[in-house]
């Protein structure tokens, strides 16, 4: 398979993640869509690393996984904190910070 296929699939997955973030209201699903976008980026990194024939892109992908894990931990902590304060779990209702 050509590398182009992987890159086009990666951009398709990224667009799907963007669509999810724009459409969904639940912070949990928005976090999941962020995961989709990070994984699409990972796929592109690994595909380019194969294209060049160099493993450094795969190290990038591993670091991106670490970043994604951190983001999940902090995001889920925020969701639990919102839930504990009995605020609605809906990003349209949580708009006090909006300018």
């Amino acid at each position, binding site marked *: *398979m*050509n*590398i*182009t*296929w*992987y*890159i086009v*699939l990666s*951009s*398709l*997955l*990224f*667009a*799907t993640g*963007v*669509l*999810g973030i*724009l*459409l*969904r*209201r*639940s912070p*949990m*699903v928005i976090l*999941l*869509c962020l995961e*989709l976008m990070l*994984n699409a980026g*990972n*796929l592109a990194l*690994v595909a380019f690393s*194969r*294209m060049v024939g160099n*493993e*450094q892109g*795969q*190290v990038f*992908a*591993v*670091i991106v*996984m*670490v*970043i*994604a*894990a*951190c983001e*999940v*931990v*902090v995001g*889920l*902590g*925020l969701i*639990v*904190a919102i*839930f*504990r304060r009995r605020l609605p*779990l*809906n990003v*349209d*209702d949580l708009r006090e910070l909006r300018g």
Partner: protein
Amino acid sequence: MEAVVFFVAAIGALGGAIGVIAMRNPFYSVLALIIHLFSLAALFLLLTSAFVAAAQVVVYAGAVMVLYVFVVAYVGGGGESAWEPIPGQRFLAPLLAVALFVELSIAVLGSALKALETHGPDTPTGFGDPAAIGRLLLEKFLLPFEASSILLLLAAVGAIVLAARRREANA
């Protein structure tokens, strides 16, 4: 054979991604994301990156998704309101996503990278295996490696601070 595996994994990845945004219940969204992650691990294997594929399955589909499942079970599903703060958001969002995909595809296909049309160069045995990645992480990329470990520690402390019960709230 490679094409068959690629298309099966690509359909799995895309189907999982669509499942994540289409499911009403967040629990099913998490399960769809697990399918997506396993398909991506198969794609990583096709790209001869064994270590990234293994890390994807163990760390992502294993540990991170378990965390998601726990929080979904704790917080519960809950329907989404039909109220739209931006008029026409349901119609504008797909348009924007399609525009983004077309734009990214034009950027990639028009980039005149000759190597994109190849399978990539022939790689030696052991390309992308744990030994090679480990050597790179501990020699060339030692600073990012240590920085990411500090970041993980900070994230753990932050999650504890965020999710811990407040003393004054209990009293």
